[in-house]
């Protein structure tokens, strides 16, 4: 005859499994609603798509002890101020192109993806692409002919030609500029932008 204490019994752990799972899931749902309200485009953490009309930087914040995106004055991309709708269309084209060209299986975006090529989270702000006056042009040339304009840094790794059109390249650049404005809690840490920070 078995005598098992209640805390080791099957029925106790069955109830625990049900309650713990249900409780955790409920908490996740509540947190999901809250997070969605805070990461929708147009909020403090994730700016509107029309932020691509502005100057963006990523500067060290003494109070937070990490860098934060800083939105400045007008700095239209490709020389034209876009409406919110136009900006969203352009960023959407960029996001769809980034998915269609399978960028994430070489690069990381917000640190997620593959590790064969640099992270794109703050690529728009990277000193490698020079001052903002020439940055969009250099990026566009690179995206449309990455082999001819290869930046291997001596690694021998070249981005392949993916048939990116001029319009798609502009979309990608708009997407990268918008993504660089997202508050990522200081990731990547210690990043030095082209703005000299």
């Amino acid at each position, binding site marked *: *005859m*078995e005598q*098992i204490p209640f805390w*080791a019994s*099957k029925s106790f*752990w069955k109830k*625990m*499994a049900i309650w713990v*799972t249900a409780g*955790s899931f409920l*908490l996740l749902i509540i*947190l999901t609603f809250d*997070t*969605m309200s805070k*990461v*929708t*485009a147009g909020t403090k*953490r994730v700016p509107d*798509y029309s932020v691509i009309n502005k100057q963006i930087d990523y500067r060290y914040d003494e109070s937070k002890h990490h860098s934060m995106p800083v939105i400045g004055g007008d700095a239209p991309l490709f020389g034209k101020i876009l409406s919110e709708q136009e900006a*969203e269309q352009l*960023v959407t084209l960029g*996001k*769809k192109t*980034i*998915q*269609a*060209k*399978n960028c*994430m*299986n*070489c690069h*990381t*975006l*917000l*640190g*997620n993806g*593959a*590790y*064969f090529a640099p992270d794109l989270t*703050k*690529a728009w702000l990277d*000193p*490698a692409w020079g001052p903002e006056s020439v940055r969009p042009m250099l990026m566009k040339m690179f995206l449309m002919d990455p*082999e001819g304009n290869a930046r291997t*840094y001596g*690694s*021998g*790794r*070249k981005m*392949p*030609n993916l*048939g990116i*059109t001029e319009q798609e390249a502009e979309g990608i650049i708009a997407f990268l500029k918008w993504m660089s404005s*997202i508050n990522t*809690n200081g*990731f*990547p*840490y*210690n*990043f030095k932008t082209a703005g000299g920070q």
Partner: protein
Amino acid sequence: MTRPLDSSNLNDGQKLAVKYFVVAVILFFAQLVFGMLAGIQFVHPDFLYGVLDFNVNRMVHINAMIVWMLYGFIGSVYWFLEEESGREIAGLKLGNLGFWVLTAAVTVVVAVYLLVQVGPGNDFTRWFINEGREYIEAPRWADIGIVVVMLIFFYNVAVTFSRGKWSGIAGVLTLDLVALAGLYLAGMFYVTNISIDQYWWWWVIHLWVEATWEVLVGCIMAWTLMHLLGVRRKIVETWLYIEVALMFGSGILGLGHHYFWIGSPEYWLAIGGFFSALEPIPLVAMVVHSIYDSGVHKLRNRNHPALAWVIAHAFGNFLGAGVWGFMHTLPQINLYTHGTQWTASHGHLAFFGAYATINIAFFYLAVQRWRGDVWMGANLVGGWRWKWALGLLSLGVIGMTMALLIAGYEQSFIERAMGGSTWSAYFAGQNHPWFVESMVWRMIFGWVTIAGFGLLVWDLLVIGKHEVRPAETLLEEPALVHG
């Protein structure tokens, strides 16, 4: 005298399971081949440049892995479904249809990945070529097919159990499959906002791999321990409930460790850090469980290779998913390790330890029955093969894991902490001899892994063929008597 593989030894569910296992092994091979191609490209970047670029090889590598593991799980459940429920499978024809639909879909998806590769930046590409989201790159039409096949699988499991015996394993399994199919839907919509995109993307990736898959292998493990060692149902089912409570209790909110840097609010740093730090606990419980059961039975079991792989599973899951995950899960370190080879190191050991091992254990159980419950104990004819396969596969994966870990350390220091994560800092890290040498070692251990796989397949094809002894009979487990 030889014992042929004879399907008359199998019930209908097992015949269906064998089909899943065969495709699983083929896809396992594809995973290794494309992993090797991608690994070679780290060392020789011009290799297959413009023909099969890194992003294509890496995509097929990780997709083949996910799919072969799913095939293994589905096959394992079909394998024990009739024995566990005491009934014939509810929808055998439907199950067969599901198998062929899934296999045809996987074939077409891989062919398109390899031949078409990428498309223009529009909706057509996402629906018919490539969704471009890591792990769930399958185009949308295939997503719908996957959900339909999962629903067929769910129907067969739920209805077969409800018509037959409804055990604790049946209950956990059925509810887990609801979650498994439901969660996949979270990855089936397009959104431009990448913070929202990655929020839901992690619902699929994390809540599959670090929650529902773990519970699914918990069910498979529970049945396996009963079958392999003769452990009493009451004990395995109690452990199963403990594992579900701990797994979901830590894993559901442990999801937060993916929300540190994607734009989500700061409270995820604390929630994700805390709960994901607890994630190794259920994996410790699994190790304790399996060691306890093996000890009680003095390691006497019906199938030595299967038990060896179950032990590899218990330790591999704990080390790969538990320890390697814990090492970089707290935000204070993850800030530097996120998106580096640390993750690749963790991924290699975790997927192998948690999932490849349990599937291989099941392949051995299946082959044993397929040859008519043949002897697979001590002094097995050709027994060196399974031991070398186990040794080489484990050595290969552990070697790759260590090489990638060293690369990850180097990347975290040189690219992240010192260089500040710019493009030039990234390449400074990639060009450093510590990184380059690590990639060479990773490739060498990749070859060791492939050698182990070759031996494994050879062994699965011939093990037990020349045995005349029947499988060992298990001793009745003594009841626990207290006080």
